[in-house]
């Protein structure tokens, strides 16, 4: 035992360093190759970044729910991606009805706000039902138990929607006002993307102020700091937990509508990838840390949008890939997942360095 006891730490560390340096090396080599090719102009890169920002702001909104729930219950709400999906899906019916009535294009602002309201209400409702039925009875159970229940809830919700609304993709109606571009400081931005970014930022600010300034927000922070002491101070912990779930779900529902503006279709499985990516964003920003989730989401969105082209296009391997990796956009999700695994391995406390290490993670 003594031999391996001495030998083991360095071996893993060496392995992890090799892993880390390898990934960084590939990224640098690929980026260098792509930039040297000069195939893309600066405008294209800006487009990538703007697209990444709009995608990332959606991730950030979803990530808020993960982060807030984790901050209080130390539990990954695996079903959060489905909460996001449910909001987008039910709001689709509202949007389609408005579109059929012509209301969507006559009064786009009011109609979109109404659609947003439907999504937020649905998501909140579903999250509260899940919390009540699946999570609340397990509050004192061993750690894996709530996680497994959450996985079950996630699949249950997915296949409920599949049973309710079918397996096909439903196309979100477009809004005429949002077609085309706005030019801002010489940079053309797709209108939908601009709306998404602005909408998400407004939501996040509102949520941040809610948590920082209101009495309920203070109670939430107190509960996340120490549940028992908070209870002793007269805070109704159950109520705070319900509010946390509800607020996080409302943000996810809003994110669902914004997501559907960028990718105008809904499907029962659409919550999975954004959910996982938003979780990555939450960890990246330091789980339990609300501004961190926002930064993490934006960072991940840009990384994912720029990454495939930047890292892989120029990744020439003599003899195998003389012209770079073919179809790099297919590997977009691989990049996101590699990012997820790397963050979990190397910085489980996040880039904004929250206080937790092995104790909470």
């Amino acid at each position: 035992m003594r031999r391996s006891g001495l030998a083991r730490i360095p071996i893993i560390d060496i392995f992890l360093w090799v892993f880390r340096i390898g990934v960084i090396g590939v990224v640098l080599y690929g980026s260098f190759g792509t930039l040297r090719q000069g195939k893309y102009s600066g405008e294209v890169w800006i487009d990538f970044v703007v697209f990444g920002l709009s995608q990332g702001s959606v991730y950030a909104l979803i990530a808020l729910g993960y982060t807030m729930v984790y901050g209080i219950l130390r539990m990954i709400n695996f079903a959060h991606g489905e909460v996001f999906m449910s909001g987008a899906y039910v709001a689709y019916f509202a949007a389609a009805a408005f579109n059929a009535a012509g209301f969507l294009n006559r009064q786009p602002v009011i109609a979109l706000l109404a659609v947003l309201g439907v999504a937020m209400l649905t998501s909140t409702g579903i999250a509260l039902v899940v919390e009540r039925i699946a999570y609340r009875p397990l509050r004192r159970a061993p750690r894996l138990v709530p996680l497994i229940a959450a996985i079950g809830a996630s699949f249950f919700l997915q296949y409920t929607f599949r049973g309710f609304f079918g397996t096909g993709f439903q196309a979100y109606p477009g809004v005429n006002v949002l077609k085309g571009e706005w030019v801002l400081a010489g940079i053309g931005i797709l209108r939908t993307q601009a709306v998404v970014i602005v909408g998400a930022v407004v939501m996040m600010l509102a949520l941040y102020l809610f948590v920082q300034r209101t009495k309920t927000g203070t109670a939430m922070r107190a509960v996340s700091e120490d549940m028992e002491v908070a209870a002793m101070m007269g805070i109704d912990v159950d109520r705070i937990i319900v509010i946390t779930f509800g607020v996080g779900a409302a943000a996810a529902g809003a994110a669902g509508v914004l997501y559907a503006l960028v990718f105008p279709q809904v499907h029962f499985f659409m919550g999975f990838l954004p959910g996982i990516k938003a979780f990555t964003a939450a960890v990246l920003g330091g789980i339990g840390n609300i501004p961190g989730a926002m930064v993490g989401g934006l960072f991940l969105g840009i990384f994912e949008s720029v990454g495939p082209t930047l890292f892989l296009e120029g990744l020439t391997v003599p003899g195998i890939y003389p012209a770079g990796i073919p179809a790099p956009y297919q590997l977009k999700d691989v990049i996101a997942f590699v990012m997820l695994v790397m963050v979990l391995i190397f910085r489980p406390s996040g880039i904004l360095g929250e206080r937790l290490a092995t104790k909470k993670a």
Partner: protein
Amino acid sequence: MSAALRTGLIWGTIGVFLSLVGMVEAFAARQVIVGVVSLGHLLLLIISLGSGVRAARQVAAGERAPGAVLLRGLVAGMVTGAVGAAFIAVGPAINLRAMFISATPELFALLSFGRGIAGIPLVLGAGAAAGVLGAAATLLPAVIARPLAVGVTTALTFGLFQELLQIILQEGTIRTAIKRLLFTDDGLPPRGALIVFVVAGVLSALLRGRRGGVRAWAASRPPRQRRVLSAGALVLGVALVLVLPVVGGLFIAQVLVLVGLYVLMGLGLNLEVGFAGLLDLGFVAFFAIGAYTVGLLTSTGEHAIADLSFWAAVPIAVVASLIAGFLFGLPILRIRGDYLAIATLGFGEIIRLLFLSDALRPWFGGSQGVLGIPKPELFGFEFSGPQQLYYLTLIASAFVAFVAARLRDSRLGRAWMALREDEDVAEAMGINLVNVKLLAYGIGGAMAGMGGAIFAVMLGSIFPHSFSLIISVNVLALIIVGGMGSLPGVVVGSLFLVGLPELLREFSDFRFLIYGAVLVIMMQFRPEGLWPSAAQQRELHEERADIAVAPVAEAVPGEAQAEGGGS
């Protein structure tokens, strides 16, 4: 009484939910007893009965006057019926179908017994009657209730599996005689169901109390005879398992092969999650690696890299997935708990996306997969179909189960359990966490790899789409249903979660819905699973007993201990 109202509302909502999700209509296609009841109506009946039973159980034990219990059942059943009636009345009027694809006219015809709005009194009446029946069932003494329950369950089981039974009863004089007695050309008629019900009920009544008697008799034999007896039982069991695909036919064999593959994966994941407590959501990656290794090594198609025989390729596949397990485990050694689950999920998805990508297409065939994998052959005997592959799967699962059982009781197994209980304490006790964790990933992965190898030859071609996250969740669900850390539990779980949905095709559309619900429900009511390992059961029940007894525990410590140990 408000509790009964609430119960009725909840169960009614469940009924509407099942209708909207499409289950009732899909199940209605299967006749359980010909001309009497379809599975869809049976589902509705069970919901109303359940409502009555729940309402009756809410009465405190002290005040169980029959009248009060029946009244509660009546109220709950009627409210359940009323929810259904409201659904029937409102659903078609507001064109629910524009949103819910399952809200078809057929569904409403089914719910209202084909009478439309005029069927509402009937629905109310049926709900109330079922509620009263359910409540009444709780009042019956066990002597009557048990044979009744056994009779009904057996008759319904016969009804559910009637196609299968008819296939099994096709040959042989005795078998065809039984078939003619019970079944008509259409299926199970009321007469057949009644016979089954009476026979099963009477048998149950006669055997009541005898089951313990047989055990006691066997235990009272001298040791040598006892050994002979248990060996005989074992031989009988093995013989039954061996002839199963021959008697059951092609379809049964096909289902059993699938069950066997899931048993292989389940044993592997059980080793990681059940023994070592490392929740792995990317487990399907090992299955994929095993399948791709065998596929590429034995294929005669365009992606072939070596023309090996299956028997030479399997050890390579097992070693490949073992190494994959080590490599997979190394970077995530320091991650714990739920983060570990997400990291492994990431790994599993990365592997699938890589197999799917165009970048690796020259080697793995991208989305077109690897084709032309020949069936294994041994001494001129070709494992050509499921009936032959069954034996291959059986031998592989038996071998892997043996390995898992030996590992569980070994030093390594105990180290895993220590790790599961508390990582820091385990390390302090001198367990080398690195080796122990890597071995869990490696050996667990190797077991799944062997499953993947058989999967590749079973299908003859492999596609990346076969290795999605849902498989990992499926395997996780089955070891949780069976009982984490329990080896027989894996088999039980596979039979229930893989075998059953295959046999009842109507279920397979809803299997993931049901899995999700099962995971949530099991975590609340039976986290130790259907066939728990001894340690797990003790642990989970001890905790509960501690909570329940906590206030008393200080006063009477001896009593609390007795309760904790006894349950």
